């Protein structure tokens, strides 16, 4: 198996951490991660051409099937680009040191995701999952800044409660059906589920659903995403947004859909969650002014699209017939969008990171004018922005369009409304992408005049992905073969892709657009007269850098008008915070009975620290207090008593009893 090479490269990349020098460590380990990711792509090709592979990797049962390679492709692509990029990017953190931590955590991160999507045992699935969570946690606090450490802690606690606990319980449920640690393969679980009582199925599905929703940031479990992606080094954020979220989709398909099965209502649930999430994520992204937080919210929104598409599939495929075909189309489009999102979102993160690398900030309000000095990065960001907004001929268009088609054709009001929301929020996506691009690269600012383009490695990392947005957009046939695990009846050849009579020919579109643009360009060849500074009403006192709209001001009126939406979101957030507050209060109240008041009675207990000042009370001590007092008195009254005395007494008593027992 080629997978061995990949894992080997990741292990080697982790071992590189033994080098003492920071720069050498991060460069070498990133490079090994890059090689490992390439091996993953090779593995995808192998499986795609010669069928599923089963085997054994260091004692871990492996099965790489049609579904696994979709996700291996995602991990490989994003991993390769981000790792290549990280070779230079990670220099940013030289002051922090501990390159070995990065080496181990980053390579483990990639390896664990690989393990999750290839392991054919639920135990190793869960283990890989935990490893993924842990290594991403370590990477999130890598910068050691207090705010980032806070974010990482919040992330890890959230993941523990919403992922680890449900996954463990689900694992236990699977075991309780099979009763053997070694046979928890997906196939066995599916067989056991087929005869399991409905309640067990429901419990299993519900537990896993919570875990996967939390990991892919579905509403209402999306609260951790923004800060986490902001805190992590940008190349890592790219992998988290590009690949880690998708792993949850793998879980949804492999562990829920394929083992427990699906039903119309379950699919409807997934689709509705997706529709809600794509609304919430996108509208929150619209308001954001920190590039990485904006991209994080955007990831939430785009994952909503993926879930919506898969939900359509889960709801309609069981119905069979025409609707079954529509469902398969929806699921196919969902997977396609998962791949596309991985590509353009990682690319956008890398561009934001490039800007951070040169300017030291990702605050959109402070940025601007970089299009002039960082041309290559700007163009990559433009490609990815257009792709994420679903502008043809980029890849985002095709998957989004197929998602709409499946929703519109679903013959269900709710799913159709979901498709409407998806189409609407595509405009929202366009809005924040325009803002993201405009605020970073638009205009011209003196402040950043001396900024230089980032090193070649980082550019290649961005362009691998940005180029793919166009390549896949124009030739979707390059990936549809791998992606079509649901056998959706899509019509496609080199020139076009479509479903039944709804077709689109990206190649033709590009040709027509190109010919027209160049033709019109030649017809109306631009002719420039003088050069002049932008017109500023003749002002002399104006700060030219600030003669613009900053990121905050772009859609202010719109945001005000839909303010009730944000207020609703904030209200939910406050409810959540309030719940945690009251749980803490309840705990403090309860715990106060487990402490003893030492010196100042009637002190109010406001925080945990107030309680920590007190002495801990043990129940048994309180119950046996009279006896202890008596012993104390006895100790004081009887002269010459020492600890040794007790030892002697005990020895005598025990010896006597043993002797008696032996003799009698």
């Amino acid at each position, binding site marked *: 198996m080629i997978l061995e090479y990949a894992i080997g490269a990741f292990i080697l990349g982790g071992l590189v951490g033994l080098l003492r020098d920071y720069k050498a460590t991060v460069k070498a380990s990133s490079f090994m991660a890059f090689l490992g990711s390439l091996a993953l792509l090779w593995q995808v090709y192998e499986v795609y051409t010669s069928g599923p592979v089963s085997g054994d990797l260091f004692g871990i049962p492996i099965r790489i099937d049609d579904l696994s390679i979709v996700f291996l492709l995602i991990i490989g692509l994003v991993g390769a680009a981000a790792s290549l990029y990280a070779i230079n990017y990670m220099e940013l953190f030289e002051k922090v040191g501990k390159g070995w931590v990065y080496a181990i955590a980053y390579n483990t991160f990639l390896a664990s995701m690989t393990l999750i999507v290839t392991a054919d045992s639920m135990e190793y699935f869960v283990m890989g999952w935990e490893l993924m969570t842990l290594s991403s946690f370590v990477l999130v606090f890598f910068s050691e800044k207090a705010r980032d450490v806070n974010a990482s802690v919040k992330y890890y606690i959230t993941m523990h409660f919403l992922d680890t606990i449900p996954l463990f319980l689900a694992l236990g449920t699977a075991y309780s059906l099979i009763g053997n640690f070694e046979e928890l393969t997906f196939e066995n679980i599916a067989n056991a589920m087929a005869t399991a009582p409905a309640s067990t199925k429901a419990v299993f599905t519900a537990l896993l659903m919570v875990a996967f929703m939390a990991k892919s940031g579905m509403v209402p479990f999306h609260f951790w995403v923004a800060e986490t992606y902001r805190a992590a080094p940008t190349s890592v954020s790219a992998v988290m947004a590009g690949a880690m979220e998708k792993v949850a989709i793998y879980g949804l398909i492999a562990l829920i859909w394929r083992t427990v099965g699906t039903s119309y209502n379950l699919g409807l649930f997934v689709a509705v969650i997706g529709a809600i999430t794509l609304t919430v994520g996108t509208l929150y992204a619209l308001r954001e002014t920190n590039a990485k937080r904006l991209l994080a919210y955007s990831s939430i929104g785009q994952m909503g699209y993926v879930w919506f598409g898969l939900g359509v599939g889960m709801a309609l495929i069981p119905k069979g017939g025409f609707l079954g075909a529509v469902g398969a189309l929806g699921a196919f489009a969902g997977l396609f969008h998962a791949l596309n999102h991985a590509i353009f979102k990682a690319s956008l993160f890398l561009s934001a990171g490039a800007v951070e690398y040169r300017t030291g900030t990702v605050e959109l309000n402070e940025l601007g004018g970089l299009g002039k000095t960082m041309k290559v990065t700007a163009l990559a960001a433009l490609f990815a922005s257009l792709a994420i907004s679903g502008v043809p001929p980029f890849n985002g268009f095709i998957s989004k369009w197929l998602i709409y088609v499946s929703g519109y054709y679903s013959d269900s009001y709710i799913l159709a409304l979901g498709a409407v929301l998806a*189409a609407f929020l595509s405009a929202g996506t366009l809005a924040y992408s325009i803002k993201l691009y405009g605020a970073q690269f638009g205009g011209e600012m003196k402040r950043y005049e001396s900024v230089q383009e980032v090193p070649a490695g980082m550019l290649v990392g961005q362009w691998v992905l940005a180029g793919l947005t166009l390549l896949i957009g124009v030739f979707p046939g390059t990936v549809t073969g791998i992606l079509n695990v649901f056998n959706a009846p899509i019509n496609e050849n080199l020139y076009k892709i479509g479903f039944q009579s709804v077709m689109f020919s990206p190649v033709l579109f590009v040709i027509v*657009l190109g010919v027209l643009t160049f033709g019109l360009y030649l017809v109306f060849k631009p002719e420039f007269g003088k050069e002049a500074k932008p017109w500023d009403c003749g002002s002399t006192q104006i700060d030219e850098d600030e003669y613009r709209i900053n990121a905050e001001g772009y859609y202010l009126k719109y945001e005000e008008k839909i303010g009730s939406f944000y207020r609703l979101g904030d209200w939910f957030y406050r409810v959540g915070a309030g719940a945690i507050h009251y749980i803490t209060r309840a705990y403090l109240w309860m715990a106060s009975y487990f402490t003893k008041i030492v010196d100042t009675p009637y002190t109010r207990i406001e925080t945990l620290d107030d309680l920590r000042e007190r002495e801990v009370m043990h129940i048994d001590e309180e119950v046996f207090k009279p006896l202890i007092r008596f012993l104390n008195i006895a100790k004081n009254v009887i002269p010459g008593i020492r600890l040794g005395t007790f030892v002697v007494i005990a020895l005598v008593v025990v010896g006597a009893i043993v002797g008696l027992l032996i003799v009698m």
Partner: protein
Amino acid sequence: METTAKLAFSFIGVLLTFLLPPYLDGIARRVKARLQYRRGPPLMQTWYDLNKLFSLPSVKPTKSALFTWAPYLALASAVIGALLLPYGNVVPIDIGFNLVVFFYVILMVSVFLMLAGLTVQNAFSHLGSAREMQIILTVEPLIAILYGVLAYNAGSLNISDIIANLHLTPSLVMTYVLLAYALYVESGFMPFDIAEAEQEVIGGPLSEYSGRLLGVFYYAIYIKRFALLWFFVSLLVLPWVGPINTTLKAAEVLAVQFLLTVALYPVIASLEATNARLRIDHVVKMNTRAFFAGIVILAIAFMGW
């Protein structure tokens, strides 16, 4: 229909796309003038204006390549949008005869307009771009939901299927009304020309454009308006004329499309002449209401009415 006829119709389509839009604007200007008891300019006036712009060199406020290319990309998108529509029964560019593609291609005109506005360091053009985006944000959901009704009513997103299968229901009538409104807003006619708003933000995204590049942009906007109107007219006409299988019938249908387009422009012009520009928040509010009306219409459509 034989190939020559097809070619002929396509050619007419191309001609209409390139030549008609400025004339339509001329008509609008004439109508507006008449409403204000003025004599008004000749019908060719918009063409003269464009020609003049084409002959002037542009002032260059930035080195950005996007600034130069955006007008051409916008114009190309608008032209493609227009050529995606049926002329008679012939679609000049068959790259996928479907609603969503049309929707996005028309959107691309705005995308390039906005990007162009953002390439220069000018608060007015930034403001204009942001306004354009906010209008899109409010009108796209409306269009999306109306497309939903059409798709459900006809059982397809393919334009030719929609045209062939639409059946008259109350919800469809309401859809037509709302669609007319949505397309009117999308076209950026008064009172919805907030993004360009000469008097407030001196042309918005276009404020730094001059000469030939400005002409190209104007041209793109006229063609986009034409395409949206032609789309609406086609939806009005084609479903009810029955199958078109002869060249003659196709020619008749094309004539009806053309006449209706020309006839509707004065209506638009009179709406423009009698309305003052709205504020952006007003538009947001109105469109949000229209969106909820759309949700109701979709529900009605799903109930089978």
